[in-house]
């Protein structure tokens, strides 16, 4: 077994320096992860050996491309505990979440026939989201509500930045969809999925899980979790940019009308009308991000080999270090649970009287890459009474030395802007 100390060596970018020769301390994995050489190499090999249109050619390279593409689907399905045909490739998690929302819209507009009637929304139907959501799992539902006359309701967060179980009662009779995050990219809080799924099921609502952060940092099993739909992005899980996936329970994808339409997802096309293929093809219109799916295959292989459990344990230790260190700086307020339990290695925080831009700039000058802003989650920032924050987020390649460098840098920031 590779020790975690060795892992960083697998990531070529981490060897670079920044700002005039400073060692890079990359703490922006929550935004996008770096990629191990194995992933880049798998993509390169595909591009130099087997690149061709999939599901289309009779020639050898097309056969190889098709096999690589579908093998990637099988690997990703297994990685998240889904069946092969339950995984639809998308360009990112955002597209996957939109795909579900537009599936409901299209059904509401009469597409998809009798089977799709289950997805029709009527004015006054309710869609429940949470205050913790990334904009990707909020705005598509606002839009769907506005177009269908459905009403958007939400579960509030606690002072610690977790979903407030008392708020689950907004899920009621008229609730048709419950969309919620598995892990917050701001507070790091990991959601206890079971009670939400249970409550949604008891009122006959569909569940949509934003697994963007969780699939990247925790072992996950979608069948076990029992959600109806889930979305995640390759680039957060060591895979290339440009690829993500939608999970949908087999019988739901079967019944859902397509969203993007075009080549490779049709059966018979006349000028007048078109019949569609079964899922997952029905949702994969046009030439797909084939090389990137191959990269994602290599990424989940890499993660599986390291072991998601070990990775989660390593990151848990980093979370503790980070939270302990931050707690020692009086000017710092962490936006999220103070304890590392059920929490990702993500720490968003406010520095009293210092704007996040300024915090990030000075850290950057030390080679420490963090993110500043609202991290695509304005509502949860508003809930904490701030507008923006600085966020340090770790990955499998992050070391304790990285966290210590960050904490030392942050103390210098406070000193610079507040001290003197």
């Amino acid at each position, binding site marked *: 077994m590779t020790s975690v100390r060795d892992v960083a060596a697998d990531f070529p970018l981490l060897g670079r320096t920044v700002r005039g020769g400073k060692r890079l301390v990359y703490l922006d994995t929550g935004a996008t992860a770096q990629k191990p050489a194995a992933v880049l190499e798998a993509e390169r090999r595909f591009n130099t050996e087997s690149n061709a249109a999939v599901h289309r050619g009779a020639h050898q390279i097309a056969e190889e491309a*098709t096999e690589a593409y579908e093998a990637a689907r099988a690997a990703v399905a297994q990685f998240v505990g889904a069946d092969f045909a339950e995984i639809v490739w998308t360009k990112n998690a955002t597209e996957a979440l939109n795909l579900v929302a537009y599936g409901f819209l299209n059904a509401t507009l009469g597409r998809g026939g009798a089977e799709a009637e289950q997805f029709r929304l009527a004015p006054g139907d309710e869609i429940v989201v949470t205050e913790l959501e990334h904009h990707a799992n909020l705005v598509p539902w606002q839009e769907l509500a506005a177009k269908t006359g459905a009403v958007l309701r939400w579960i509030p967060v606690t002072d610690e930045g977790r979903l407030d179980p008392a708020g689950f009662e907004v899920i009621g009779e008229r609730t048709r969809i419950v969309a919620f995050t598995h892990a917050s990219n701001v507070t790091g809080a990991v959601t206890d999925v079971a009670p939400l799924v249970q409550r949604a099921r008891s009122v006959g609502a569909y569940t949509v899980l934003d697994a963007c952060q969780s699939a990247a940092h925790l072992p996950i099993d979608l069948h076990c979790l029992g959600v109806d739909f889930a979305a995640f992005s390759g680039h957060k899980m060591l895979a290339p940019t440009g690829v993500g996936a939608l999970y949908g329970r087999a019988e739901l994808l079967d019944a859902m009308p397509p969203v993007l339409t075009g080549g490779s997802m049709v059966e018979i096309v006349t000028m007048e009308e078109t019949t569609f293929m079964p899922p997952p093809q029905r949702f994969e219109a046009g030439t797909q991000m084939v090389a990137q799916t191959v990269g994602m295959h290599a990424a989940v292989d890499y993660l599986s080999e390291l072991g998601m459990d070990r990775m989660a344990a390593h990151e848990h230790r980093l979370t503790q270090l980070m939270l302990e260190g931050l707690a020692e700086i009086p000017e710092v307020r962490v936006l999220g649970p103070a304890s590392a339990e059920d929490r990702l290695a993500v720490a968003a925080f406010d520095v009293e009287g210092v704007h996040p831009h300024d915090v990030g700039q000075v850290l950057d000058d030390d080679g420490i890459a963090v993110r500043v802003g609202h991290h695509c989650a304005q509502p949860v920032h508003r809930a904490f009474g701030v507008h923006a924050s600085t966020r340090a987020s770790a990955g499998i390649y992050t070391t304790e030395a990285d966290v210590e460098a960050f904490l030392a840098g942050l103390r210098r920031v406070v000193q610079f802007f507040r001290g003197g």
Partner: protein
Amino acid sequence: MSSAMQQLYQQVILDHSRQRSGYGELDQPQGESFQVNPTCGDECRVQVRLDGRRLGQLGWTGRGCSISQASLSIMHEMLEGESIDDAEELGELFRELMHARGKELEPQKQEQLEDLSAFTGVAQYPARIKCALLGWMALRDAIIQAQHG
């Protein structure tokens, strides 16, 4: 022609693709199924009339490559008049052959396949497996329909 192509396009396949056994519509089918291969748009329609537990009549129409046409033609030759159980068994065996990636099955199975053993080479070409199986998917469906429809 290379030996690979000669193995793929065996004479029995070429012959059956030209002289198609059982091509045509039945008068009063009890079950029928229409299947499309979406990659190429090839289609076939298989119709059956049952005679107790036997395939009293079996007819098919459609268009497709030599592999798909020969597969349907041989299917007709081997199964018309035979029992539904035999049809199911042969179908299973053929599916097994098609997923064997070009390897022969055990000798006894290979024998049971008769002319269908000519398709052994097809299984090396993933894109063509669907061609060979299209008619058999339709047959299975048509029988179910005739039994329950």
